[in-house]
């Protein structure tokens, strides 16, 4: 399925959960927050929440800033 991740097109296996996506992107060790279609999906629900084609995913983390 085609997703949009952080504004970029991305191909992922159908029915992937957020947890699977995070693992696929090798982001397991990072502290992240994730939005799907404008709504935050809490970490506790990443395994349950399945993504569908055209979902817009935002994955953010903390970086240096003032």
């Amino acid at each position, binding site marked *: 399925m085609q997703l949009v*991740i*952080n*504004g*970029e097109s*991305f191909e992922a296996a159908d029915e992937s959960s957020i947890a699977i996506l995070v693992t696929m*992107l*090798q*982001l*397991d*060790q*990072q*502290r*992240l*927050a*994730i*939005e799907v279609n404008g709504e*935050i999906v*809490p*970490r506790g629900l990443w395994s349950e929440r399945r993504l569908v084609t055209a979902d817009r995913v*935002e*994955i*953010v*983390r*903390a*970086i*240096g*800033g*003032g």
Partner: protein
Amino acid sequence: MTQAEPQHFPSDVLTIAGRSYRSRLLVGSGKYKDLEETRLATEASGAEIITVAIRRMNIGQKPGEPSLLDVLPPDRYTILPNTAGCYTADDAVRTCRLARELLDGHKLVKLEVLGDAKTLFPDVVATLIAAEELVKEGFDVMVYTSDDPILAKRLEEIGCVAVMPLAAPIGSGLGIQNRYNILTIIENAKVPIIVDAGVGTASDAAIAMELGCDGVLMNTAIAEAKNPVLMASAMKHAIIAGREARLAGRMPRRRYASASSPLDGTIA
């Protein structure tokens, strides 16, 4: 590194949203040349509250590459997410929600809504709107604002836990531009007033504390010094010096001289 501690007022702590801190220096984590410099400068500063920005993950990042929160662990520091780069109240609110999720429900946030890319002055109208929404959603809001005393009071009344007037534009290093406004804000405030933005060197920080600020937040002043680790230490000392001077109660200014040595017994 010397561990300068306030000698006479061991209970002089900074309390924000019910939590107490010994350091009145708050620092940002941006503009350093690398994470190691970030770590060293932050340690040298003695700061306990560190601001971070919230940004999209770099999807191509190699796994195992250290990230900011590896060098500034949330169990060691109070991580204060900011809404840097937000020009609308909606973006700022959304960023705070993401930050709260990222930090396991921690609700202390630094709100800034910018009005203009050149001066980075706050859009105070959008700031008020965002502050109101965030307070309603249960956030503890430390709010970056202009040095307008009426606005500062409004933000406090809305329920912000700290008000942070700028000294001068972000990254300008110009120091406090309007002492009297900062003084008025302090006089009227029931929440901590933390000067944020525009500090350039140690004396700027000391002056802020002498005016009666509860703390100072800075980033560029340290990160863009030629020796950031040394400047971080300078700032730590400046904050302590300014605070002790404030608590000590300075001498009055005089129009004319007042001799320090007695006249009695002068040889003739």
